[in-house]
């Protein structure tokens, strides 16, 4: 196997006396969906927080394309192309849907103070391109007619989709979704599944997914890592995980 996009080796996170995550290993390649499953409190979100720089891991290595990124501040990691959504949606609620997508493109925009003050052609061009990209993604996630509405007024499912669109306008390489299907109805979950598949296949993203919705996880994942009490329990293809006795005992439950 070639060098993976993201490789995590022996990740550990300790909060005082509590070892929240211990010995987690992940390998995520391009065009791949890797899911993390496990009971609540197993440490899945903690792993996410370590990967995106919100926590500084106590031990272990995180390699993005072979480059160590552990301990970097969150915005630096995001600029390297690792972006995430949140378990509880974090949109800029007072800003419009469109503006949410423009803020996400901040670092690609012309932020030169004088260029903006004088509205130079370069500044106008960069703003126009940003609008076009934002518009493209709004259409992609089916929010084309909500562009000028404040994000806080959108329906819950729409907010979830907007959050994914917002991540995509940063032009990421790895998309990390923290329970994206929570609170969605079955039809919306189907749409989400299609969207994730599309992002993987058309945009070549590596997707890291935390999810409790088993049909979704089993249907979309290339590989699955099961975590229990901060420790990896099993790793494999959906079929392997489904029949893994430890996973069934700890999480899936006997049929």
């Amino acid at each position, binding site marked *: 196997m070639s060098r993976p996009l993201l490789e995590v080796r022996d990740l550990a996170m300790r909060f005082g006396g509590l070892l929240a995550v211990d010995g987690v290993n992940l390998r995520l390649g391009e065009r791949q969906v890797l899911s993390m499953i496990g009971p609540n409190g197993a440490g899945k979100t903690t792993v996410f927080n370590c990967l995106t720089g*919100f926590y500084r891991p106590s031990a272990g290595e995180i390699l993005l394309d072979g480059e160590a990124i552990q301990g970097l501040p969150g915005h*630096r990691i995001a600029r390297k192309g690792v972006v995430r959504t949140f378990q509880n949606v974090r949109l800029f609620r007072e800003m419009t849907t469109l503006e949410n997508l423009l803020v996400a493109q901040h*670092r690609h925009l012309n*932020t030169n*103070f004088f260029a903006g003050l004088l509205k130079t052609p370069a500044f106008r061009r960069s703003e126009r391109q940003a609008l076009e990209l934002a518009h493209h993604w709004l259409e992609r996630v089916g929010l084309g007619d909500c562009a*000028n509405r404040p994000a806080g007024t959108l329906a819950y499912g729409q907010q979830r989709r907007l959050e994914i669109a917002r991540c995509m306008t940063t032009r990421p390489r790895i998309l990390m979704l923290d329970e994206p299907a929570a609170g969605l109805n079955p039809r919306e979950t189907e749409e989400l599944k299609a969207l994730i598949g599309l992002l993987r296949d058309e945009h070549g993203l590596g997707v890291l997914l935390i999810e409790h919705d088993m049909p979704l996880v089993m249907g979309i994942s290339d590989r699955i890592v099961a975590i229990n009490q901060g420790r990896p329990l099993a790793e494999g293809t959906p079929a392997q995980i489904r029949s893994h006795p430890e996973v069934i005992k700890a999480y899936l439950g006997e049929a």
Partner: protein
Amino acid sequence: MSPRLKTALFSALLVLAVAWPVLGLRLTTVGIRLEVHNASPALLCSIAAAAVGMFCWQLWRDRLAVLWSGAPRPPGVPNRLKDILTRPATQRWGVLALLLPALVWPFLASRGAVDLATLILIYAMLGLGLNIVVGLAGLLDLGYVGFYAVGAYTYALLSQHFGLGFWTCLPIAGAMAALFGFLLGFPVLRLRGDYLAIVTLGFGEIIRILLRNLTELTGGPNGIGGIDRPTFFGLTFERRAPEGLQTFHGFFGLPYDSADKVIFLYLIALSLVLLTLFVINRLLRMPIGRAWEALREDEIACRALGLNPTAIKLSAFTLGACFAGFAGSFFAARQGLVTPESFTFIESAVILAIVVLGGMGSQLGVILAAMVMILLPELMREFSEYRMLLFGALLVLMMVWRPQGLLPMQRPHLELKP
């Protein structure tokens, strides 16, 4: 005792406790000693009446409220009108509408009135600058006057030691204040809310105390005097020009009028305010303006999207400080004298009050609030003893009735045209 009676008694006692020492006691000098006397019986009676009134009102306020609700309500401002008034476009027209009287004002009003208007413009500029920091970026800065002082002293020192003119020093003063903003912001912007407020408060005081004690450099409490006034393309407005310069009235063959200088200063202040307004209006529509808004709403989401929170906050802090520097150097030029006592904490408080009264983020609101805050003390000179009391009362009433400020503004939204 019912809780209502308790409240009523307490309120009445509070009225007595506040009013009697403040109003009811008179200090008179007898020889070299101070003696305390009671005020006139009429005044004491009115204090007692106020206490009784407060007692009754607190006791029966519920019933009064019921009676009141039966009375026909005065028509409130309809929602639609409110929406239109708070739109950025409407407020831009409001500012433009104010511009016309502002341009005519110096040629119609008395010299004192023009001078007062200049002062209002200085505070409007400070308010607009602080509005970037507090209103747009959401950082509570209680030491804003420190940057104002940096600007003023930069011009004063450069003028005194190197003989540089106002127009050369204006950008330098802005840059110096911005530098101070940057240097202060760098370590402290990781703090939030109250903690940031305390550190900036300390910074403002440190600047003032430094200016007071660096006697060799800043002249200590005496300050720096004899600062040059701004010139009009090298023409001075003094009666007699210093060597190498020409006077304004001499050049244009006009009779000398001391009001010219005041009018000129007013026009400079007006153009500085317009420049500030222009910059802020552009900022709101620039990526950095959107980033400030986003950061105010959700810092964690910003970080996850690759925005550097420290850099974005720092830009707001630095820009705000820069405008304070401009205002400071103009202040020095207008006064001709700067002393540390011009830059006390109360100035910071007044500027912050202007921002809060005006409505956070609103330019027109800040300008109106600057007028109110500067005009009220002038109009109430007879009550100058109670000025601070009225100031406090105004703030309390505002927070009760209009916590969003006199004239809040909606943020300009970028719309996608179909």
